Each structure stands twice: as C-alpha cells, then as structure tokens.
C-alpha cells in the first residue's frame, strides 16, 4: 500500500470507523483515539496489508480496541446502567429517535452491537463480520438475531408508547 492508497482509505473509511467506535463506546474522545490508533497501525503495516483488506483490518483493530476499553469499564458501567435504568421506557418526545436507538444499542453486548453495526452501517456479510469478530457465520447470524430481538423488544415498547 502506497501513500496515495492510504490517503484514499482514510477518505473512504475514517467516518465509518469513527461511527462504529462511537456507537460502541459512546465517548467521543475515546472513539477518536481508537480511529487514530487503527490508522496508525495500518500505516505502520501498510506494506503487509492489501488495500482491499484495509477496511476489514481497520474494523478488526477498532473492534478489539473497543473491547479493551469496554472491558476496562465493564463492571461499573454495566452496573450503573442496570441499577439506574433497569426498565426505563424512553420518551421519544424528550430524547429523539436517534438517541433512543443509541441508548437501545447500549443494552446489547459488544458482540451483538458490533455485529449489528457492521451489518447495518457497513453492509458486511456474515462471513466478513465473522472475520472481524472472530466468529463463524452461524455464530454471527445468531448474535445478530439475538441483538435485533433485544432491540425489537426495547423499541417495540417505545412504539407502543408513541
């Protein structure tokens, strides 16, 4: 990968990677840092990574980075969420639909969330998602099903309110 190809990859995937990271960890600065680290590693290993594989490489790095961050904060953040908002019903008039979906995403575990984000935002196949998440296709499919089922239940209740 030469410099021009790298620039093109930044141009094509930086926003998506940032969105993926932000949706996963919800902290802007940390999401930016994850993106920065991922592209830095890509640059360092540019001779080994084919441009066509760069996107997958970046998302794999970002996902692993997200997992690390999430695991560091897992206990207290999950406990906080469980104790503070265990059965909260969101008022779409107050927080907006996008924020509601983002909140709902936080209810998923990192694998389900990442799988759905990669599937819906990036249009990845089960195989590609499996490559990033280190799962096989069937496992990906099940994780996505379970994640959507959970989202369905959360957002379905909201729709009932509306």
């Amino acid at each position, binding site marked *: 990968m030469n*410099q021009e190809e*790298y*620039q093109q990859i*930044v*141009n094509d995937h*930086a*926003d998506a*990677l*940032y*969105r993926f990271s*932000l*949706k996963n960890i919800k902290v*802007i600065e940390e999401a*930016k840092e994850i*993106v*920065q680290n991922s*592209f830095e590693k890509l*640059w360092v290993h540019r001779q080994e990574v084919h441009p066509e594989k760069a996107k997958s490489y970046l998302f794999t790095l970002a996902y692993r980075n997200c997992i690390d961050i999430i695991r560091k904060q897992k206990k207290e953040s999950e406990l906080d969420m469980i104790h503070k908002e265990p059965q909260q019903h969101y008022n779409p008039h107050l927080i907006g639909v*996008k924020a509601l*979906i983002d909140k709902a995403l936080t209810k998923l575990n990192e694998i389900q969330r990442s799988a*759905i*984000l990669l599937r*819906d*935002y990036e249009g990845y196949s089960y195989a590609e998602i499996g490559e990033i998440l280190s799962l096989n296709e069937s496992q990906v*499919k099940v994780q*996505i*099903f379970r*994640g*959507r*089922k959970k*989202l*369905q239940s959360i*957002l*379905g209740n909201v*729709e009932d309110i509306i």
Partner: protein
Amino acid sequence: MKHLHKDIDWTIFEFLEGNLSLDERAYVKQLIASDSVWQKSYSTWKLSYLKADLIEHPNKNELYKHKIKKNIGFKNNIQWYIAASLFMALTWYLGNRQFELKRIKTASTEASSSIQNRQPVTTYDQESFGSQNSPDAPNLAAMTLDKKRVLSSSHYGNPNEKAIENNLIALNNPAKFTVDTTPRIRAVGNAVIAPPPSKEESTIYTALTSFFPTENKKEATLEWTRVKVINTANESSHSPSPATAVIEMYIDTHYFQKNEPPRWQQIWQHTKNGQFPAIKLAVETNPNSWIPNMNVNFHYP
C-alpha cells in the same frame, strides 16, 4: 421453502436479512399482508434495523499522512560553523579576485599613461658605482646609448606598443604570469646555460622572453640566470624586481659581449667557474627618454 422457520421471529428475521429466495420472500410477504400477528411482528422487527446515521470524523485531516519534509537545516553547530567558514572563504576569494582584477586594470591604465608621460623614477647608488668619474664612464655612456637604441626602437612608433604595455604590466605583476617550464638549454659560445632554476626566476624569465621580442632575446635570457642583482632601488638584495633583472641582463649581455669582449669573456669565465657576479645598478632619470640611464658594475665576492 427450506429457509422458512416454524418460528415467526426467525422467518421475519430471515426475510428482513434478505436470506430468502424469491419464492420464499413472496410467501412471507403474503403472510405479512394477510395476517395481523405477522404484520405486528414484522413492524417491530423492522425497528431493529439501524438506519443510516451520518457521523463524520471531526479531525479526519489528522489521519492523513503527509509527505515528510526534509530538514534542510544543519543538525548541529559544527555544521553551521563549517558552512559559515566556507561562505566567508568564498566571499574573501571573490572579493580578492575583484580587487586583483581592478589592480591589473589600474596598472594597465597607469602603464599607458606612463608611456605618454615618460617620467621614470630615479634611483641612484652613487657610492657603489655609476659615477661619471668611474673608469667605466665611457663604456657606460655607450651602454646607455645602446640600450636606448634598442628599447626606444621598441617603443616609438612600434606596432607592438600594446604588447610592450602588456609586458610592462606583466613585469610589475610577475605572479600573474604563467611559468614557462619548457627546458631551455642553449649553447652560447663555450657555455651551456641551464633553464631558470627557481619559480621566481622562471616568472621573470617568462616576462623577459615576452619583453624582448627580438633576436637579442636569446642572449638576453642567457646570462640572467647567473646574475645576482644587488642594491637595486626599492628591492632587497636577494629579490630584484623583474624589470630590474631584465635591464641588468640586457646591459650585461649586450654591452660587454659586444663592446668589451675580453672583459665579457673574463666575467663569463668566472661564471663558468661558479663565481657569479654581483651587479650593482644605478639608475638615473633620462630627460630625453622614458627609459632611464643605468650604470652597472660587477663585483665578485
């Protein structure tokens, strides 16, 4: 219908994921349209699909890798010192060169004007020789006439005047001359004359051969390498000016060889025996010519 699941959620999930064939899709569509339970399930499942969310990286420019700018500066002080020294040396050289060129130009101008003014500088060593009461007085007079004839013929109305001017400049700037290193060994009479032995003499020798573009040149160049001029005007005894040396040599060869052959032979014999004469020169202004009158005497230490 192999992908169709008994579970309604799985079937709708497969439908929304796009995993069904065209027939299966058509079948599920029909179920959704005709059955309210399927319709409700379909509506809630649709909510789980994330719609496009335009989020842009706020600092994308930081991610681009720009070309590395090479540092054209110097890494340490030593390199700066070296660069500064080279610059100063170059400046000094160029300045000095300009000065030398200007000096040569000035010398050329002065030479031209001096030819017109005909006012030579007078130097006189009365104590050593050249007195009118000297036993050599008649010879000196003849020598002066002879010299005047030759040199003046080179000057007045001579087409080579410009060349002579240039040679005068050269004589005053011996360092500017290219040394003629061609070996010149000529037999004159019984003597074998070696080429000029030193750089300074070579320089003068070159000037000399340019200064006398006549057949006398050979004779004029011969004796000089054996002559040591002392007590000349404005010069140390070991460093005669080229002009003085040329004149001395000329006088030596022409006067004694032609007018006093026995004495010339005597001097030449001394020279061949390794006894080199010291010539004392007195120069006095000649009101009728730009070439001064010169009195010469020889001494053997």
